[in-house]
């Protein structure tokens, strides 16, 4: 059992939680994730370790309530427990000095991009970050990002904050500009990562993405998380989650993410109908 120490709502559907997990906190590196199961009947879902608190005993998770599991999780209160939490999983980000790095986070992906930006900055890189959301109310971690970056670009789809448009619009300008870019690191919805990969490819800029397929065990045991990278099947939970964006078959990733769409929708609706009272 893993105790929730504090909880904060960052945006309408985005929750930040500090969870006591000393063993994981002692080990987690940027780019790694955990798998959790909210309760006895719950599904196992992966979430990124956003940070470790000062005590070194708790980890911060930031998640968007998109379906039954994340909604259930978002309803837990400080002092309550998450049944199972395992990690850290996946290979950590390769943190070294690249030169000028552009880190891109879209939606809740900003939370996942934050630890990477911070680590890359500490390693001596010049970090430019681009973060975006649908609208001002959904934008998260702006201040935190500003703190760990040399320059920050904010954009919203509706123009309610920063610049109107997509994160990729800003990236396009940076690519066309005069400052050389040594690495682009993108994390967010698969379609955003695909557009980033397509944009940087003609410029030959090395681009890394952190993939988010459906997972079950997270230890290489089931193969649910497989994706095609460079024509080969890889397991994202153990071989990734980060891969060279120019090698990833994003179409396959997006198709596989939708495998249970109808069932997920059913489960969420049923939960909201029946579980509304105890929220």
């Amino acid at each position: 059992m893993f105790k929730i120490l504090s909880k904060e709502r960052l945006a309408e559907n985005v929750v930040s939680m500090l969870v006591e997990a000393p063993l994981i906190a002692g080990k987690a590196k940027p780019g790694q994730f955990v798998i959790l199961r909210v309760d006895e009947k719950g599904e196992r879902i992966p979430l990124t370790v956003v940070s470790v608190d000062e005590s070194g005993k708790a980890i911060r998770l930031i998640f968007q309530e998109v379906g039954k599991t994340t909604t259930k999780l978002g309803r837990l209160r400080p002092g309550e427990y998450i049944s199972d939490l395992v990690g850290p999983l996946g290979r950590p980000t390769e943190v070294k000095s690249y030169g000028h790095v552009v880190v891109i986070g879209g939606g809740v992906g900003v939370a996942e991009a934050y630890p990477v930006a911070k680590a890359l900055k500490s390693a001596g890189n010049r970090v430019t970050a681009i973060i975006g959301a649908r609208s001002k109310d959904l934008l998260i971690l702006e201040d935190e990002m500003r703190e760990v970056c040399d320059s920050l670009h904010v954009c919203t789809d509706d123009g309610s904050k920063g610049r109107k448009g997509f994160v990729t619009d800003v990236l396009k300008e940076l690519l066309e500009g005069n400052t050389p870019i040594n690495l682009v690191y993108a994390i967010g919805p698969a379609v955003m990562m695909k557009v980033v990969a397509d944009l940087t490819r003609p410029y030959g800029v090395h681009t890394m993405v952190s993939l988010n397929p459906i997972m079950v065990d997270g230890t290489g045991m089931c193969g649910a998380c497989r994706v095609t990278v460079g024509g080969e099947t890889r397991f994202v939970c153990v071989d990734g989650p980060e891969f060279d964006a120019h090698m990833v078959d994003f179409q396959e990733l997006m198709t596989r993410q939708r495998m249970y769409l109808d069932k997920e929708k059913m489960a969420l609706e049923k939960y909201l109908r029946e579980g509304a009272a105890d929220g």
Partner: protein
Amino acid sequence: MAERGGDRFKRKPMRKRPPHERIRDFHEVALGFTEEDALAEAARCLQCPNPTCIPGCPVEIDIKSFIGFIREGDYESAIRKIKEKNNLPGICGRVCPQEVQCEEVCVLNRKGAPIAIGALERFAADYERSKGVPEARRGEPTEMRVAVVGSGPAGLTAAGDLARLGHEVTIFEALHSPGGVLTYGIPEFRLPKSIVRDEIEYVKSLGVKIMTNVIVGRTITLDEVFAMGFHAVFIGTGAGSPKFLYIPGENLNGVYSANEFLTRCNLMKAYLFGEYDTPIYIGRQVAVIGAGNVAMDAARTALRLGAEEVTVVYRRSEAEMPARLEEIHNAREEGIKFQTLTVPVRFLGEDGWVKGMECIRMRLGEPDDTGRRKPIPVEGSNFQFEVDMVIVAIGQNPNPTLTRTVKGLNTSEEGLIITDENGRTSIPGVWAGGDIVTGEATVISAMGAAKRAARDIHNYLMEKKGAALGWIPPTP
């Protein structure tokens, strides 16, 4: 005796639920012996002066004696006799391939039908369970601590044996629930999870602590395990990494590894979706690739989840199928189809979902190094058939999560841990056993290896303790 001579060579069959009934749910298929069945079957045993059955058992259960106790109606002594060697009798009585172990070498096998040793073992275990399992006896505490990695049959056995000898044992398990393949792989209808749970409780009652959600190599390293004050480590991490065919279309939606399919169903209880949160997809026309126990389990599970037609596709002929005969028989009874001498060459998709399979026919050539005749593709024999779901069950590779992160641990090319006959690895104080050493094998062989390792660990610990106290242990 003479008047019963006619029965001597006839084996008591185990009662089973009829196929049409059992394919609608996940309850156990085989029902076990009644007391009457057990007494009749035990009465057939010759109580041989030199029983040939015992060397056939990988953990050397005193089969003759436990059957002798059943003959006398002393079931408590029977189960106690079994438990001298086997902490998991309810599990082994259900899943061991007795037909190629103890029963194969039972003298009666030459003269008629061997004693149904597995069924009798199961009877004794179930009898005890129905009466409430007595408190286990532990050894004098030795103050020596052992860490066990993995809670499959190998880990549970090593832990149980070492705890009984008085050592303090902690198991670290990666998943949220202990049991390894017994929990996530073998389905409810063949091995009820309540039995796995009870037998794990028994191991715990010996004093074993189980810490779930800990991946050794990730959550804690092997070095840290020693730093936590453990004096020895046993690794039983299994062969849990699924093999794929690596042919076009294998990542289409609707194509599962058997591990994922069975894990969703067994560990995550996807067959109760609605009450439980993990979804599972079920097609109408299902192909299962491979013909081992895993393939049979996957095929029969798909049928129970509502598939209309399930076909096992196998590259050799029926005679070479690696699954237990009984399971092939059960599968066929339930309506599973078999397409032998066939291999898929690619999966065909539509909108990202599997819709068909292109296969090629095979013929059998000379025996290969496993002694089975080698399948050879028949050129130009390609054909297609419609499927909307595929389960790939062609085997597993060793689980790499631990071995990849440990320096100095000798492994084979495929990633299996190399040990001596007692399970000692290349790192002092570290033993290994089960599927991570042998590759995919059986529950009982994993247990046998764990028992040998436990014995050796015990000697090592007592020697270590003796050295610390300044005395030399007597040579055994």
